């Protein structure tokens, strides 16, 4: 008897989870959504009605196989304005999670964080800081990290003080048909292996998209990233990242795409235009971030207290194929805040080229002129190029892009179960 009562209670509860939203007032949803997220059973679909719902603490989910669904990214809004506790808006640590048709606004820190999940779908989600570009906005709007099999599609990210759509330390990733604007970085693909980024719009950010590896993160060796059919245009919003965000603080205003410390990257069929510092920036970690790693490793403090140089890290950029892109109007008004670029632009009469390469080569690659295998093929003919020979203080710059005319084998498409 006790058993049958339990079963019927459980059934009632499960039904309530999917239906509750229809019958609840906004205040009920604000009060009880977290409880629903906790008591959800695997397979639950939690539907939210139209409306703006206010939360002053992080909402979190740890149950696998849950779908959280609203009525549209502008119609069902989770607002965290005035958040009192927690550093995220919605924090998910679960597998087989789907979120769709929901807006997430004004979280204290990151908007939507998905950490350590397999088979994740983020679809038609808008994550935004409504006051626009501001150093006090959270770092990331859509922030999946340490995920496997990840799809982010038809989503919008605005106002992030680091990256609008960030994917870090993940594998098998598809980012498509999203829009990132008024962020510092529009997109970031960091320490990630196997990513396809296509049909996105990246505009009015400080930089459109970064594809790179950073040291001192648990997962190293990101590679195999394809960036294609994207519009990477007019990313000239002055960098508003706070200094404490480290690397991103040094992102030049007016960057289209930058590729740093990574190999196996294919950039094709994009429109990359009117980014005022540079359209395509191919660089070693040292050029991008400075000498932090090396200097730190040799400092007496480091030796004293054993914070090691990250021996797994490899700072060179290599095997990057840039082909069949429409590239124009880059480098017209470079960000002089970045010392290196400012000096370079001054030397060149005030402007930089569409494509900039630091030309840093690992001696281990041998003596071939293009041992880094940077290949430029069939891009807009008028696109300008400069290898600024960072290794020799710009003594032997190369401006003839034809010297880099070569092809690399096409990278294979990323296959994930949810993006067939």
């Amino acid at each position, binding site marked *: *008897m006790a058993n049958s009562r*339990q079963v019927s*209670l459980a059934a009632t509860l499960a039904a309530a989870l999917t239906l509750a939203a229809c019958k609840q007032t906004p205040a009920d949803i604000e009060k*009880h959504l*977290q*409880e629903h*997220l*906790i*008591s959800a059973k695997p397979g639950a679909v939690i539907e939210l009605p139209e409306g703006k719902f206010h939360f002053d*603490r*992080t909402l*979190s*989910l*740890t149950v696998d196989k849950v779908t959280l669904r609203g009525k549209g990214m502008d119609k069902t809004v989770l607002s965290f304005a005035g*958040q*009192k*506790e*927690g*550093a995220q808006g919605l924090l998910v*640590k679960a597998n087989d999670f789907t979120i769709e048709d929901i807006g997430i606004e004004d979280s*204290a*820190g*990151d908007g939507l964080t998905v*950490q*350590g999940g397999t088979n994740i779908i983020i679809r038609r989600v808008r994550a935004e800081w409504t006051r626009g570009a501001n*150093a*006090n906005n*959270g*770092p990331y709007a859509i*922030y999946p*990290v*340490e995920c496997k099999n990840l799809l982010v599609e038809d989503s919008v990210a605005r106002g992030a003080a*680091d990256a609008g759509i960030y994917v870090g*330390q993940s594998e098998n990733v598809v980012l498509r048909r999203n829009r990132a604007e008024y962020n510092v970085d529009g997109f970031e693909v960091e320490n990630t292996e196997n990513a396809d980024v296509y049909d996105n719009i990246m505009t009015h950010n400080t930089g459109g998209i970064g594809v790179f590896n*950073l040291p*001192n*993160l*648990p*997962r190293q060796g990101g590679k195999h990233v394809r960036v294609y059919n994207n519009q990477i245009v007019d990313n000239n919003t002055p960098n508003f990242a*706070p*200094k*404490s*965000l*480290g*690397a991103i*603080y040094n992102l030049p205003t007016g960057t289209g795409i930058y590729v740093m410390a990574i190999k196996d990257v294919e950039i094709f069929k994009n429109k990359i235009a009117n980014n005022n510092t540079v359209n395509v920036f191919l660089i070693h970690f040292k050029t991008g*971030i*400075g*000498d*932090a790693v090396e*200097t*730190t490793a040799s*400092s*007496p*403090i*480091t030796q*004293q*207290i*054993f*914070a090691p140089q990250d021996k797994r890290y490899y700072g060179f950029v290599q095997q990057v194929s840039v082909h069949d892109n429409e590239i124009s109007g880059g480098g017209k008004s470079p960000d002089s805040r970045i010392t290196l670029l400012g000096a370079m632009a001054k030397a060149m009469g005030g402007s930089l080229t569409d494509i900039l390469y630091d030309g840093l080569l690992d001696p281990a690659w041998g003596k071939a002129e293009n041992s880094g295998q940077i290949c430029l093929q069939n891009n807009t003919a008028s696109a300008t190029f400069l290898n600024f020979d960072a290794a020799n203080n710009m003594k032997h710059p190369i401006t003839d892009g034809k010297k880099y005319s070569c092809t690399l084998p096409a990278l294979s498409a990323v296959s994930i179960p949810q993006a067939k």
Partner: protein
Amino acid sequence: MKLFKYLSFFCFLLLGSCRASQKEVKLFLSEPFPQKLSAWHLYTETRSGLKPNNRLLPYNLRTPLFSDYASKYRFIWMPEGTTAQYREDAVFDLPIGTILQKSFAFPSGNSEKLIETRLLVHTQTGWTPLLYIWNDSQTEATLQLVPNPVPVKWTDANGVHDFTYQIPNVNECHECHDNNRTLLPIGPKARNLGKEQVAHWSEVGYLKGAPKEFPEVAVWNKKETGSLEERALAYLDNNCAHCHQPGGTASYTGVDFRYGHFQPGYCKHPNSAGNMHDLRYDIVPGNPDDSILVYRLSSTAPKVMMPQIGRASVHTEGLALIRDWVESLNKSSCP
């Protein structure tokens, strides 16, 4: 129903033994867990401090997690005939059926008021967290998933403490307790219990395999227990390492505060911090004011403060310890 009648009858016949059963902790290992804390029979008295029932063993940690100056009362219970296996570098291997109990109280008038009791119950499917919130009369606590915040106010030598205590919700238990998405206890490690308590656990049969000698962490606020650095390391181990370690919630930040694995981020840029007052490095040796670690400990703003949850006030004394330690490091200007 029938069963219940039989049981009542049985009790009636054997009144003595049923009454005796009240004197034993009652274990629940699966859903539905009791709505009322009293169902567990953990205490014989609650209104003037928690008096543990038989075999509910109180314990303390040498250097605990700071929780808004709450008094914390910790107990452990294991089923008769079971025992934990000693481990040197991790929480003991605790048997199925273990109950870890932590109760939180704040000063109120001349005494204290219980706010919440957290249970971690080791079931066949893993550790289950349960939150019970105490009533005003301190006679009972009720199971909740998402407890309401509680305003607290008291005055002590440091002045007036007046803030809203945020009781974590059940999901937030995972924030600190998860490692590789498995919920684990944090506190009962040999190094943080110390030799005296470990010996006592062994005596009462709760622990086997414990050596007499093993490393203990310093007591963060007792100079005689360790150098400034040892006390700082103990503090960081027990306030930060549950997240900042491989597999922990903040593993992706690449800093590790575990005792013996210490890599706290000297001259390291943070990976994903928010606006840290324009500071650039986790720790600038010799310079606490330029260290994000210190800035985060001194803040109560949601995206700035560390730990991210579980405190609404600054731990002035803990902050001073960490400041002093950063100050004591060989001065170095980061690149």
